[in-house]
Structure formats: structure tokens, C-alpha cells
């Protein structure tokens, strides 16, 4: 329960409501416990004494108690639901807020799908348990304790029956915890296995069909399916044996009360009313334990959820804003890498980038080329400080990026990432995402340069067409072009294209390059330094500088012509893309 308790501070703003809910809960329990006692009075003082006034008055009192209880109970519900829902909404909000402060390094570890689960079903689990906590969870022990007190008070000579039942009940709880929980875990594993087979089958449907493997897949599924069934039956057989046993034990206790209490009554040591009250108190004091057993599973699930939530809330952003921010006097877009070394798990031994030295003058186009895993993306991610270097430094306009105010730095840099993620909204909103005050003309200019204007105009509502989850579907190439337009629209000093034309066909790409040159050279009021990461050699041919990366080190820097002469790696890449014919 550790993790859940650590989330409790989120309830702080609502502690008045929460305390009030608990007070009202006490009222509910009190009312519940009063009823048998009042019944006893009807029997012992009213019926026995043939006193109609006592009977009537007590009955009216009971009715009053019931009415009062209903009011108190509704109050408790409203308050506990409110506290639970509000706390959960706050936790969710804290999660989303926290994610906004995280850096790419953190995000690599916490994947999108996982974050989503944490913000939805995990928060939901916690919310359920909070609401239950303010009602059932706290009520059960109070109820049990109160009923036991009343039992001792009403018929002290029968209280030992309760004590006798206790070890039995605890035995069951223990058995449940020790035996059933591991079994449930195995069921979960079997279920995961079944889902994996199913998911793979769906995702690989082309392969399955192409190789005509339906029968094989069915067998795979059948194995997982049968396993799951067998295990589920095993667990449930155990559970359905234990659960009714709890109720049976409560019933046995009432038989005990009737027998022993009856004997005492025959001896004249107890009244009939006392026996009746004792039967009820016995049920009241044992039944909550059954309720608690039913809570074990949701409680441990919620605790696990709380743990996952805390993992996000407590993760330390890897990129911290500078303590003493410094702003350069002029912003021109000069980027310098000085002895940079970088690795994703910190430590220059196993570095992704090693001893990188590179100068990009304002207005230059720098292309970065190299094999997969040679560190191309890592290199350019250091410029907007998506990650921090482990050694050396990266300077933008003479100031270490770690000293730049984060927001300022990033608004100097326009980046089109490898995977073009768009947001639901209009095309226009997506393009001016980084600069919401961009005019329509600026949006269109950016779209034209990115070769997106034509296909945007072909869409039903042009720039007002809705895209994303509930809108038009775009092809990969179209998304990439919109992402480039988005990067252009911020009019950055440093433009980074991170393999952002991979899904664009060659012809369109070459048009895009020309238009981009045009835009950067003539239309913007300032110079823009461009970094292009590319796989295709055609993309990089016209760059001012081509950086050839090999296993995290700069193998060579030069123009196409220079590199063709002196860099064997460059020649190799070049040759492989142009091929050496089959025949």
C-alpha cells in the first residue's frame, strides 16, 4: 500500500471534504448499529412489559434514525465521489504537467503507450479506490469494531463466539493471499500470451496470408487458448470454494448465538431481545471482513497503478533549465560542436557520439550522412537540447545551449522530426503550431516551400480541412511535408530536417529542396542555418558541407566533389545507392 499512501498528498486540497465524508460515515455506522439495539428495546421493554407507548416511540425513533441515515449517507456519497474524482483529475493533470517538463531521454524510457495507460486506467484505478476508501474501506473496520463493541455490551456472555470465528476467517484470508494470488498472476500471464498471439496475428496479417499460415496460427492460438482456460478454471474453482465459505462461517456464528444464547435465556440469564440483537451484531461484525477480502484484489491493483503513476511523477527531467540563463547578443544561427561526446546511458565509454567538432556558419547548409546508428539524429538533437552532451559543448551563437533559456533556444530552432506527428485540428493550425500568430500568407508561403500547398488545396476545405484523429487521412509523405512547413513557419535561425523526406518521392523531394533554397535565400529577412539528415545521397548533393559520420565520429567533412575524391566511406555509400548493375 506504500505507493497509494504516497499519492495521498493529492487529497490535501480536499481534506475538509474528505474528513467530513468520514464523519458522515461514522454517522451511517452509528445508525446501522443503533437499529438492533432499538429492536431489542421493543421486544424487552415494549412487548414483555406490554407497553405500547415504548413500542411506538421506539419504532418512530428507528424510523427517524433511518431517515437521518439516508441524509448522512447521501452526504457521504456526494463528498467521497467529489473528493475521489477531483483528486484523480489532479493526479492526471500532474502527470500531464510532469510529462511537459521531461526531456527526450525520459520519453525514450516511458513510451507513449505506457504514458497513456498511466494517465487513463492507472489514474482510474486510484480514483476507484479513493472513492471506495472513503466509503467501504474505512466503513468495514469501523462497522466490525462497533458491532463487536455492541455485541459485548449487549450480551457479553456470547462475545467469545466471535473470537472463535476469527481464526477461521483469518485462515481463509491467509489461504486466499498465499494460494489464490499467485494463481491469479499465472492467469494474467496466460492471458498476456493469448493477447500477444492475437496481436501478432493481426499485425502480421499480410505475412500470415502470404505464407498461407492460417492453420499454423490457429494451432498457436489454440495452445494459448487451452492454457488460459485450464488455468482460469483452476483459479476460479479455488475462489468459488472460499467465497461462500465466508458467508457460511457468519451463518455458523449465528447458529452459535442461538444455541448458547438460547441456553442462557432458558436459564434466565439473557432476554430474547438480547439474543435477537446479538444475532444481528454477530452478522454485522463478521460480514465486513468478507467485504475486506473482496477489496484485496482491487487494492493491490490500485497500489500497482499508484506505483506506475509515481514512476512518472518522480522521474527527474534529464535536461534542466539553466540556473543563470544567458542570452547571446546577436542571434545569427552559428552552431558549433566542441569536442562533443554523448551517449544515451551517460558515460563516454559507450558513446553514440565521440569527439565531434563541427562549425556551421550562419546561412550554411550542413548535410549529415552516415549508416544507421552512426549518430546522425543524436547529433542534431543536441542543438535544441533534446538531450544534453556528456562531454564537450554545443554552442549556438557563442552561448552554450545549456545556458540558453530553454524556450528561447527552441524557438530559434525549427525542426522536422523523423516521424511527422500532426495534431488534430485544421491544416492551418498545424502549420502555424510553433508560431500561432503567423499570418495566412506566411502559412501559405511555408506550405508552398514544403510542396504541401498543392495537395492542401486539393482537400475539401483547403487550409481549413480537419486532420488527425477525426479528420482526413494523410499519406506518410504528405504528413512529412506538413511537418516541414510547420518547421519553416517559425522562421527559425536554425532549421533541422531529420530525415524528414524519407516518405516523399524523389521528384517531389527535389522540388522541395529548390523551393526551400528559394525561401531561405530570398524571402526570409535573416539567414538560416540548415542541418539536413538524409539517407539518400541525392538529398545532400548541394549542401555547403557534408558531414560523414561513422560510428559516432566525424569521418570527414567536405563538399560532394571533395568527398568523392578523398572519403572511402562516402564513395561506398555513393556507390551502393547508384548500384552496380545485376547483369
Amino acid at each position, binding site marked *: 500500500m506504500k505507493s497509494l499512501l504516497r499519492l495521498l498528498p493529492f487529497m490535501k486540497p480536499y481534506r475538509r471534504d474528505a474528513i467530513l465524508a468520514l464523519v458522515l460515515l461514522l454517522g451511517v455506522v452509528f*445508525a*446501522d448499529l443503533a437499529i438492533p439495539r432499538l*429492536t431489542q428495546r*421493543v*421486544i424487552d421493554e415494549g412487548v414483555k412489559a406490554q407497553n405500547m407507548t415504548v*413500542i411506538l416511540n*421506539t*419504532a418512530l425513533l428507528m*424510523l427517524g434514525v*433511518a431517515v437521518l441515515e*439516508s441524509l448522512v*449517507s447521501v452526504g457521504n456519497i456526494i463528498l467521497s465521489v467529489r473528493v475521489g*474524482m477531483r483528486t484523480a*483529475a489532479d493526479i492526471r493533470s500532474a502527470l*500531464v504537467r510532469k510529462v*511537459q517538463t521531461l526531456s527526450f531521454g525520459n520519453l525514450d524510457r516511458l513510451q507513449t503507450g505506457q504514458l*497513456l495507460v498511466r494517465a*487513463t486506467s492507472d489514474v482510474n484505478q486510484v480514483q*476507484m479506490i479513493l472513492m471506495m476508501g472513503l466509503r467501504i474501506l474505512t466503513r468495514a473496520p469501523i462497522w466490525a469494531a462497533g458491532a463487536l463493541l455492541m455485541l459485548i455490551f449487549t450480551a457479553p456472555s456470547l462475545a467469545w463466539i466471535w473470537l472463535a470465528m476469527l481464526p477461521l476467517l483469518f485462515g481463509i484470508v491467509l489461504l486466499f493471499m498465499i494460494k489464490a494470488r499467485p494463481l491469479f498472476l499465472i492467469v494474467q500471464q496466460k492471458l498476456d500470451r493469448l*493477447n500477444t498471439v*492475437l*496481436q501478432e*496475428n*493481426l499485425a502480421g*496479417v*499480410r505475412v*500470415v496470408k*502470404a*505464407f498461407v*499460415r*492460417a492453420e499454423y496460427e*490457429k494451432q498457436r492460438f489454440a495452445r494459448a*487458448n487451452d492454457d488460459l482456460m485450464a488455468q*482460469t478454471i483452476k483459479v476460479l474453482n479455488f475462489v468459488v470454494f472460499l467465497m*461462500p*465459505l465466508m458467508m*457460511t462461517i457468519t451463518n455458523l456464528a449465528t447458529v452459535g448465538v*442461538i444455541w448458547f444464547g438460547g441456553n442462557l435465556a432458558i436459564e434466565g440469564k439473557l432476554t*430474547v431481545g438480547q439474543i*435477537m440483537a446479538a444475532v444481528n451484531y454477530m452478522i454485522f461484525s463478521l460480514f465486513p471482513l468478507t467485504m475486506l477480502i473482496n477489496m484485496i484484489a482491487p487494492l493491490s491493483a490500485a497500489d500497482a497503478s499508484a506505483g506506475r503513476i509515481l514512476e512518472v511523477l518522480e522521474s527527474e527531467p534529464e535536461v534542466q533549465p539553466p540556473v543563470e540563463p544567458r542570452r547571446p547578443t546577436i542571434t545569427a544561427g552559428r552552431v558549433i560542436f566542441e569536442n562533443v561526446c554523448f551517449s544515451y546511458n551517460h558515460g563516454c565509454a559507450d558513446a553514440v557520439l565521440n569527439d565531434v567538432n563541427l562549425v556551421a556558419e550562419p546561412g550554411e547548409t550542413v548535410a549529415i550522412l552516415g549508416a*544507421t546508428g552512426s549518430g546522425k539524429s543524436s547529433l542534431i538533437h543536441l542543438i535544441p537540447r*533534446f538531450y544534453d552532451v556528456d562531454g564537450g559543448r554545443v554552442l549556438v551563437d557563442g552561448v552554450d545551449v545549456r545556458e540558453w533559456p530553454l524556450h528561447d533556444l*527552441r524557438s530559434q530552432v525549427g525542426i522536422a*522530426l523523423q516521424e511527422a506527428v500532426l*495534431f*488534430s485540428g485544421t491544416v492551418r493550425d498545424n502549420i502555424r503550431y*510553433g508560431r500561432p500568430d503567423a499570418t495566412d500568407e506566411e502559412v501559405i508561403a511555408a506550405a508552398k516551400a514544403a510542396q504541401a500547398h498543392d495537395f492542401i488545396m486539393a482537400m475539401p476545405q483547403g487550409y481549413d480541412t480537419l486532420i488527425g*484523429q477525426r479528420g482526413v*487521412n494523410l*499519406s*506518410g509523405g504528405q504528413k512529412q511535408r506538413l511537418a516541414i512547413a510547420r518547421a519553416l513557419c517559425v522562421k527559425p535561425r536554425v532549421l533541422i530536417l531529420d530525415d524528414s523526406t*524519407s516518405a516523399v*518521392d524523389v*521528384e517531389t523531394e*527535389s522540388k522541395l529542396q529548390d523551393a526551400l533554397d528559394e525561401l531561405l535565400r530570398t524571402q526570409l529577412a535573416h539567414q538560416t542555418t540548415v542541418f539536413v539528415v538524409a*539517407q539518400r545521397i541525392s538529398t545532400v548533393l548541394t549542401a555547403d558541407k557534408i558531414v560523414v559520420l561513422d560510428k559516432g565520429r566525424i569521418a570527414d567533412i567536405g563538399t560532394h566533389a571533395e568527398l568523392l575524391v578523398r572519403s572511402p566511406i562516402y564513395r561506398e555509400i555513393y556507390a551502393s545507392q*547508384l*548500384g552496380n*548493375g*545485376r547483369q
Partner: protein
Amino acid sequence: MEQRPTFSNEPRGGERPPVSIPLSGPGARRFGTRIEKPRDVRNTLRRLLSYLRPYRWTLVLVIVLVVASTLLDLLGPYLNGVAIDRFITRRDVGGLGKIALLMLAVYLVVWAMRVAQARLMVAMVQKVMRTLREQLFGHLQTLSLSFFDRNPHGDLMSRLTNDLDALSRLLAQNVTELFGGLLSLVGIVVMMFAINFWLALGSMFVFPLMLWFTGFVGKRTRQGFREFQMYIGKLNGELEEIFSGQRVILAYGQEGSTLAKFDRVNAETRDVGIRAQIYATLIPPLMGIFSNANIAILAGLGGWMILRGWATVGTILTFYNYSRRFAGPLRQLGDLYNQIQSALAGAERVFELLDQESEILEAPNAIVLDQVRGDVVFDHVNFSYTPGVPVIKDMSFRAEPGKTIALVGPTGAGKTTMINLLSRFYDIQSGSIRIDDVDLRAYNKASLRRKLGVVLQDTFLFSDTVMENIRYGRLDATDEEVIAAAKLANADQFIRRLPQGYQTELSERGSNLSQGQRQLLAIARAVLADPAILILDEATSSVDTRTEQHIQEALLRLMEGRTSFVIAHRLSTVRGADTILVINAGEIVERGTHAELLAQRGFYYHLYMSQFKGQVAMQV
């Protein structure tokens, strides 16, 4: 870097068929209760019952046990009353002993019966679930690719998991609860009236109130939850967008605007949720209060009746216990209504999936394709994913046995679609595609696909060993054959360097291999399958130079002697092809060899030159 799914089921680029509305159901399944209405309850129930038919004797036994245990259970409170009236007040210790033993016996028998009944149900329901899952999965294997394009995987997964889950709860718990609950309600009423008519009538006072109240709150709850559901959908959508776009948000410094938008949705959802949840939580405790009110009535009325000699103390105790038991089933019935409704809606979705017919039908006397020369003809082929939006227009060409056909053209031109048509993943609208002079549709589908070897750009791997992943190409291949295929595909080297060699377990979708390595495995798979006709979707990028050369060599080896269709990105493939088909907007705009097409100075020349900006022209 964001992990991309390594295999996409959608045809790439502009060829992607529009994703139409999924079969049904809102996207918001992540949060608990959902309240839906089934459309055709009778039909759904009838079909559901057909699954229970094999277990009808088990069911009969269960019903008997439920009836017996419920009735016996009702005996408990009655015996309590009897004990007080007959034995305690009359000071009969012997009788008290007997009745205590009787009660003990009754409770133990009830417990045994409950256990027996529950175990029978568990076994039956789990078996029915297994059958349903098996049928669903088996049925999915027969559906055509266009079905999978149209229906999001999440939705299909949800039918096999969530919907079946709800269904199993319905069968295992809800039905017995409903039955047992109704039975004990009736039983209690009957017992009460049998024991003491007037006192029973008095107790009935709160009954209609309870009923009305359950109905009222239930209706509000459903309304509230329906609205809540909508907001949850919105909230989930918002969260999904934020998290998947998180890098972009950071890159553009839009944290503030993102949070503002999120806060609004979050607060709205919370407020709607509070309302819905309050109603949902109201019923159980208030039912308890109604029974307390009833006890007050019992005490007053009963006390008065005892004084008149019209009732006994034991009767009051019996009634007292009965009225406590009354609330339970009634409350359950309120909950059950919602649960049953949504379970039936789930069942409906499951059956709907089972009723989906494959759009690709097997010809009545399908020819089993055995020996293939590899003569492929497209004859005036027309095709569209959605009516009115042609993707392939009047396409005709012939591939002679053993020749290599390169398909070249911009994204969205229809290249992937052509390959899909050849594999008969989709059926064409007019014209014909023939292999060895016989229309594709006349062949047995499985035998056709066995003769086609497909190597896709994104290689799909299963979470299994490397050995089994290659063997997927031909299940009866020996280990030696698998290794031989891997060698031919240039994959053997890297496989041996893996921690457990061929026995290395691949993680989900082979994410522990590089894209190039995955591709080599796919080639090995195709080598093992030994197809007559080869279909290749070349990789464009993301592979390092050395691996690329390995892939290249392996592909050339694989293509030898087979009719090959290649969506070509590599110059070498294009140049080496026997025929290049230049595809644009669903039509063949040019055809010929590399040299011929260059000489034409048309579309191909343009495409080619733009790729290399004239620098290469000198070398060619």
C-alpha cells in the same frame, strides 16, 4: 527516437484505402463501466443459447442446485424464529439442540451446493469462452485484407478480450445472480406471507418505494454514464494526442497551450463524472436504509401485533432477517440490468464479427495451383478501394516466366496495390489477372499464395526463435534446411553472432534486430518457401551500406529463375530489370528497359534525373 511499428498493414502512401467507420463501438474502452444497448436482444440471446446447448444437462443441474440452495438459505431465518418461539421461550433445551443442529446442517449443505453449482458454471463458461475465442480467431483467418484495413486492430482485439470478458461475466455471474436473486425475492415474499399475512403486508409498504427508487436512480445513472463516456472519449483522445506528439510539443515550446487545452477537457470530464458517479453509488447504501426503515415498521407494527397476540417474537426476528436479505437481490437487479445490457451489446459485436463474410471468395471448383511456369498477365485491370476512386486504371502487361519486372513511380501511384492484387489480397473490379493463362480467381487461394513469395519492406517477425521465424516460410523444413536458407540469404553470419544463435528469442516484432537484419530474415523465409513467383518491395532507406550489399546479393540469388515483381528503389534493380513499368496515378505511363526509357526522355528520364541531378548521368 520514437519506436515505429515495424510493420504496417496499410498500403503505403496515397494508395491507402480510406479508413471507414469501424464496425461499431466508441473508442473509449479504457475506463470502466460502459452502458450500451444491444440492438436485437432476442436474436443475440438465441445465438448465445446455442453455445450452451452442449451443456444443457449441466445447466439443468445448476438450476436445480440454485433453486435448492436459495430455498434452503431462506430456511435459515425461519428456523431462527422457530428456535425462539418454540424452544427458547418454552425452555426446551433438547429441542433447541435439535434445531441448532438442523440449522448447522442447512448452512453446510447450502455451502456445498453453492460450491458445486459455481464449479459447474466455471467449467461450462470457460469452455464456452474457449470455443468462442477459437471460432473468432479462426474466422479472422478467413477474412480478407480489406477487412483488416477497415477495422482498427484495437477494435478487433477488444472484441476478443473485453467483449468476451463481459460475456463470460454475464454467463458466470449475472445470470445466476439474476436467477438466484429473483428466486429469493419471490421466496422471501412467499415465506413472509405464509408466516404472517398482516405483518407481511406491512413490510410490503417500502417495497414499491424501493422498486421505484431503483428504477429512477438506474435511469439517471445510465444517462449520466452515457454522457460521461463521451467526455472520457474526448479526454482519452486528448491524452493520446499529447503523448504521441510530446516531442513536437517540446520542440516547438508549446507546453503552455497544450496544458491549457488539456485542463479544460480534464475539468469537464471530472465534473460530468462526479454527477454520473454519484447516481451510480447511491443505490447500495440507500437500499440498506430502506431495509432499516422497514425494520422500524416491523418493530412498531410487530410489537403491537405481539401485544394483541397476532404475532410472536420469533416471527419478528424472522421478518427482521428476511427484510435484510431483501435489499441485496433488489440492489443486484438494478446493477444487473446495466451489466446484462452491456454484455449483450458485447455479444452482439462478437457475433457481428463472426458474421463478417470474406470478400475474397473461393471459386466453387477452385484449381489447386501445383506446377507454375510463372507467366503473369494483367489484362485491362481496374480496381478501387472505394467505389469511384480508381486506384488501378485499365492496366495491361505481361510478365514472361523468369523475367524481372520493376515497378517504378511516385508515391501513391499504385505500385503496392498491384502487388496486393497479384496476391489476391483484394479482388479486382474488372478485367482479369492470369497466371499461366488461368484467371487468379479460379485458383485455390491457399495454393496460389503458396506459389507466391512476398518480401515486404517492413518485415514482420513473431515473438519466437529466429529458427521458427524463418521456418514460417515452410513449416516442414528441417533445421538444416532453415540454416541453408539463411546462408543463401546472407543471414547466417549475423544469426550466429546473436547470443543464442538460431535459438535466440526475438522480442516483440523483432525489435532487437536492425531493420536490415529483419529484412535478411524475411529473405531467408522466402528462400525456404521456394516460390515460383517472387514479389519484392524493396527497402528505401535506413539500412547501412554493408547490410544493404548483403541484402542486394541475397535478393539477386533469390530472383534467379523466378518471375519477379519488384517495387524498385535501387538503381541496380531498375537497371537490371527485363522490363520497367513506370506507374503514375494508376496507369502504366511508360514501359521498356532502362536504356530504352532513358532514350525516350519522358517521365522515367525525368524521375531518374531528378534523383541524381545529372551527376550520375555521366556514369550510366
